[in-house]
């Protein structure tokens, strides 16, 4: 297998608050290859956004801190990089698309400014070349009349359009990897589909690798090559998209799949996963899913299961991973 | 419906209402940590200290604040006069003990400032409640007046007023009160407007509760917390207003001690007697700071989302 573009090893990011230490990300490892789309899935609060911010070193620094791990990008551990080296990576090598398009754009600057800003910094282009490129990018993401709209301010765009601008901004310096943190969660359902199509088209054309963070399994099934399921700060199952959906080996993932309402089966009642995620300040010693798991037994509460092989493209952290199965 | 029955059902409905803002503020003080409360506690202590001094200055000094002892003019702090009494803040240009003038001066500031605050506050709350709850022409007029106040410099009017009409204490209190009512009216009106839209008010009205009852029992208690915040800041502002007028010699008349006029007296002798300048100003700064801290800490407790950007 070729060397991965991005390799994350045992990343831990904790938040030191007056109410205790919140272990938001507690030892995750995964990798992203060129052109690959990796999905990170989990419910709210499982640490997926924080893990993305940790890669970019944008974790708000008090109270958060990345306390352990390596983030190896093109052979170098960027957690150890200097601030100026990191700034060269941000935007140019790794770019990010944020969740809330309403607040993620600066309201008092034109989008021309916000698009051109990273280009002037990272690329060796003149101002007018940057502007031309900005127009092309807007076209790529489906905003017509780009040249005229450059002089507009964010509040003159709708939510979906703003998200397209964010995507254009992320692409502006030709990054090798884009991290998209729940890019469609805050949008209307109909717009969600449009944005996802835009992202799919963009990735096809530019062959950029992507890490997409979401809790929407439909998105995952459609777009992801590899899937990592996160729960309470750890990755509990990981594998190719097909493996995860057709050969699920972790009770949590099974629960997630079962809780999605289906149109083709006769719906009786929805099947949510009972209970709530654990308090990240006070984690139990054994498996963190134990108190909600329908297969729980003694070993689960005593010892933490590690990720172990199910097949060469599938791992799961569960004591009974070999005996779980779900019909697709 | 008999009155008794109305009373009973209305008080049943009172339990529909969420705990008043004031109750929540008090609770947050009780449960809060010391570091959060310290500003509040200190400022309350300082203000009480001032009130105590204003009420009974003779407990803290033996000197007569209006006794001119021309042989002891402008003595430095620590001077011991021929009777063996020490003047630990020195004497002024007429030989009067600065410390005792400071203590008695607290009286002037607190009487004019405090009375002005109470009168202005009462009027302001009344106007605000009426404007906010009833609305209509009264509200429109009241709000125009409030806007006008805030865009026009009251000090100018106060100067003309005091200079032309007179500087007796009653007049000064009126001048100060006329400045002070505005912020109270604005805050109370805002709260009244917000609260009258809530469902439990409609429920009470449906039970036949009168407007007066609604205003007094339900709206007013919920405005107490913001009113107290405003009161804190206004206290400082009004004391400063009185001091400014006294400094311009159109406030409290000599020989009655007042901090502002003490500073005015000190002006010609600035280079000779620094203690006559330093201490009255410190006293003023201290009480204003305490008042501001009081307002600040109350406001922080009231709604962190509203303001707490510390």
């Amino acid at each position: 297998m070729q060397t991965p573009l991005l390799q994350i090893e045992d990343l831990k990011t904790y938040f030191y608050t007056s109410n205790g230490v919140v272990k938001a990300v507690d030892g995750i490892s995964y990798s992203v290859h060129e052109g690959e789309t990796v999905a990170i899935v989990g419910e709210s609060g499982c640490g997926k956004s924080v893990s993305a911010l940790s890669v970019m070193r944008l974790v708000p620094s008090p109270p958060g801190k990345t306390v352990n791990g390596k983030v190896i990008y093109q052979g170098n551990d960027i957690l150890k990089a200097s601030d100026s080296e990191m700034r060269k990576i941000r935007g140019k090598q790794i770019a990010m698309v944020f969740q809330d398009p309403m607040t993620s754009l600066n309201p008092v600057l034109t989008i021309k400014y916000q698009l051109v800003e990273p280009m002037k910094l990272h690329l060796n282009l003149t101002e007018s070349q940057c502007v031309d490129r900005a127009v092309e990018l807007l076209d790529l993401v489906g905003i017509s009349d780009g040249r005229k709209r450059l002089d507009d301010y964010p509040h003159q765009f709708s939510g979906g359009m703003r998200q397209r601008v964010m995507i254009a901004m992320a692409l502006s310096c030709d990054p090798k990897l884009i991290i998209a943190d729940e890019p469609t969660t805050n949008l209307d359902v109909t717009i969600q589909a449009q944005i996802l199509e835009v992202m799919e088209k963009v990735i096809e054309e530019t062959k950029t690798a992507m890490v997409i963070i979401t809790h929407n399994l439909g998105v995952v099934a459609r777009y992801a090559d590899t899937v990592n399921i996160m729960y309470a700060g750890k990755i509990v199952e990981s594998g190719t998209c097909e493996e995860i959906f057709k050969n699920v080996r972790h009770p949590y993932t099974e629960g997630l799949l079962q809780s999605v309402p289906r149109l083709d089966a006769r719906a009786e009642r929805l099947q949510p996963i009972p209970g709530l995620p654990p308090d990240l300040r006070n984690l139990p010693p054994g498996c963190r899913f134990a108190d909600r798991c329908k297969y729980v037994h003694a070993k689960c509460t005593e010892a933490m299961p590690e990720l172990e092989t199910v097949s060469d493209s599938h791992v799961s952290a569960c004591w009974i991973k070999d005996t779980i199965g779900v019909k697709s | 419906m008999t009155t008794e029955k109305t009373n009973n059902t209305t008080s049943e409905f009172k339990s529909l209402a969420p705990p008043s803002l004031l109750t929540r503020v008090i609770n947050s003080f009780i449960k809060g940590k010391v570091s959060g409360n310290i500003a509040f506690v200190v400022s309350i202590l300082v203000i009480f200290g001032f009130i105590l001094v204003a009420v009974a200055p003779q407990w803290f000094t033996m000197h007569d604040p209006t006794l001119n002892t021309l042989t002891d003019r402008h003595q430095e702090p620590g001077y011991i006069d021929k009777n063996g009494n020490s003047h630990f803040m020195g004497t002024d240009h007429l030989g009067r003990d600065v410390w005792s003038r400071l203590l008695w001066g607290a009286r002037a500031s607190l009487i004019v400032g405090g009375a002005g605050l109470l009168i202005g506050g009462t009027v302001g709350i009344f106007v605000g409640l009426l404007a906010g709850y009833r609305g209509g022409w009264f509200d429109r007029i009241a709000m125009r007046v409030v806007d006008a106040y805030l865009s026009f410099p009251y000090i100018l009017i106060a100067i003309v007023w005091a200079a032309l009409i007179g500087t007796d204490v009653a007049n000064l209190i009126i001048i100060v009160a006329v400045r002070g009512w505005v912020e109270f009216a604005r805050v109370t009106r805002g709260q009244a407007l917000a609260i009258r839209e809530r469902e439990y008010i409609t429920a009470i009205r449906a039970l036949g509760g009168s407007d007066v009852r609604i205003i007094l029992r339900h709206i007013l208690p919920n405005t107490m917390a913001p009113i107290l915040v405003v009161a804190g800041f206004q206290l400082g502002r009004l004391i400063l207003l009185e001091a400014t007028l006294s400094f311009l010699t159109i406030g409290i008349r000599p020989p009655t001690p007042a901090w502002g006029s003490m500073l005015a007296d000190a002006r010609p002798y600035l280079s000779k007697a620094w203690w006559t300048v330093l201490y009255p100003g410190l006293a003023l700064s201290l009480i204003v700071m305490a008042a501001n801290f009081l307002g600040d800490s109350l406001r922080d407790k009231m709604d962190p989302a509203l303001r707490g950007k510390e």
Partner: protein
Amino acid sequence: MQTFLIQRILTAIVTVFIVSIVVFLFVQASGNAAAMLISADMERDAMLELEEKLGLNDPLYVQYARFMADFFTGGGAVYSFKYMTPVLPMVLEALKWTMVLAFGAISVSVILAIPLGTIAAIKRGSFIDLIIRLIAVFGQSMPSFWVAMMLMLIVAVNWQLLPVSGAGIKEAILPITALSFYQLAVLLRLFRAEMLEVIHQDYVRTARSKGIKEFAVIYRHCMQNAALPVLTMAGIQLSQMMLGAIVIEPIFAWPGIGYLIIGSVMYRDYPVVVGGVMIAGMLVTTINLLVDILYGQLDPRIRVS
């Protein structure tokens, strides 16, 4: 936007009008209406005659109308007692001096508040933040006339660095410093609070994620957003500066409107007091109005709508 503008202008005009009436009524009530027009050492009969002649027994509104007309045409009866010259030119001349102080103080406080507020926000919780916040707290509580006197005491008298009084560039330093003290405190707190809020906004995080240098992030993305309310406040406070000057000028013998008004109060030179108050009041109201309009221009969100 149009109706809002018209409304504001009307309110301002009405306010000034009402204030002039109020002031006029004060003069009437003080029983000194005659004193406005008559020299102090006239004999009683002559005075009564003059009263009649000058229409002091006319209905109030007539007197008021006459007063206002006289005042603005710089003629007739509204003369200063002391100098026996028309009040209006005196007032306008003095205003120029006051504006020097006011603009100076605003500039100083804005220029200092922005960097200090930024530092306090960036280094939140540190020692320097604490110092800056203490300055702000003290600055807001100390009476400006006291600050003025203390400055004079320390700088002019003890250190002998600057002149004590008069009118000139060197003489302006102390009054401007004293005047800007309170203002600096207010703007500092405001700017620090605004910066703290802006720094945590999502769009700042977006800017960082593009690899923008930290200095540019703070300057381009944070400060510009935080500065707006501060500049507005500064504009509003311009008129407050004028008022602060009223109290400070006499201390430094700076020949502005404060010096004029206060001096005239001492001398019971009522025409000057009244005239000064009215003009100053009108100016203040006008400035506030202009600031309101300007605010609409600066924020693009308001402008486009």
